[in-house]
């Protein structure tokens, strides 16, 4: 009985340690298990629903050369840290968002743009990944593009202009982001 009383007298220390442990290791774990930007491709998807981990696992099954990790995040992940989205390589965005963030996006060379690309002032900025007309989209087992509440619109897969993985598009060393974007587009 005395021992139980003594342990309860230290309860604040146990609770404090639990909180410190969770916060500290949550932070350290993220740092330790991350990798440098040159060796990972980061995708942010502004869609109503995304199976982020499953999509990352699927993309990691066949990684482009020199890439060790694919990170997939919903936009809500970066709600309190816009730097996260600024360090992304790929975006999946609704049509309106593409128009709003066009300054941060890399133009797609004309020969690779295709017919359905998002075009602004004659320059293509995104590949169509979901069409609101046909209600069909790529990687639909990982991404849900519309809900009943929202007005349906096209979604595009776009590239950040300062990404390190766009190859000749922006003079970077590898084109891993382009390869992965093509793979997402080919997914059912």
């Amino acid at each position, binding site marked *: 009985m005395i021992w139980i009383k003594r342990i309860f007298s230290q309860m604040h220390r146990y609770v404090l*340690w639990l909180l410190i442990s*969770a916060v500290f290791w949550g932070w350290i*774990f993220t740092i330790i*298990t991350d990798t440098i930007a040159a060796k990972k491709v980061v995708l942010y998807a502004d869609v109503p629903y995304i199976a982020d*981990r499953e999509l*990352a696992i699927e993309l*990691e099954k066949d990684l482009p050369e020199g890439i060790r990790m694919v990170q997939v995040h919903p936009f809500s992940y970066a709600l309190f840290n816009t730097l996260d989205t600024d360090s992304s390589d790929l975006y999946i965005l609704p049509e309106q968002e593409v128009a709003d963030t066009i300054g941060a996006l890399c133009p797609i060379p004309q020969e690779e743009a295709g017919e359905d690309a998002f075009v602004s002032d004659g320059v293509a900025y995104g590949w169509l990944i979901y069409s609101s007309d046909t209600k069909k989209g790529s990687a639909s087992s990982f991404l849900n593009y519309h809900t009943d509440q929202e007005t349906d619109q096209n979604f595009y897969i776009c590239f950040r202009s300062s990404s390190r993985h766009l190859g000749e598009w922006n003079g970077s060393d590898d084109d891993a982001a382009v390869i992965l974007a093509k793979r997402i587009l080919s997914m059912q």
Partner: protein
Amino acid sequence: MIELYSPKEIALLKKKRNVWIGIAVAVAVLALAFCIFFCARTDTSNRDRMLLGTIISSTLGGWIVITLTHFVIEDYRNAEKHIVAVLEGPREYEEGPFEWTGEHLRVRKGISMTGIRKVGAVKGNLYLYDAKKKSFQVERAVRVCTVYGFVAAYEVSDDLD
């Protein structure tokens, strides 16, 4: 006079305390090793489980260290302090016979004491360290030596031998 405290006890307590400090450090290192192990085994598919494993290892390790530090190690340190105080304190003598009061007291956050008093006295004013109970025969004690109210030594009656 039968002495209940000796300087040798301090060395023994220090040794025991150091062993427990070693155990606490080993637990902390082990918990850290588990955390690093979980981090090293992390990939995209098991990330959540590994993070949970890391937090559980760290939390349990910390709880064990807190328990050892605040109960076992601190108790040894307090016992050490108590023994030093009794060995170095001013001695007083009181004539018996004595009896247990049934009163229990904890000093220095954990050292348990049992009260004794002169037979017939209304209130007890002496305390015996529970760890010394086996060495103390209250029914045979005719004179006790006390330091700050703690029984440090006692004399037994030859008549009862």
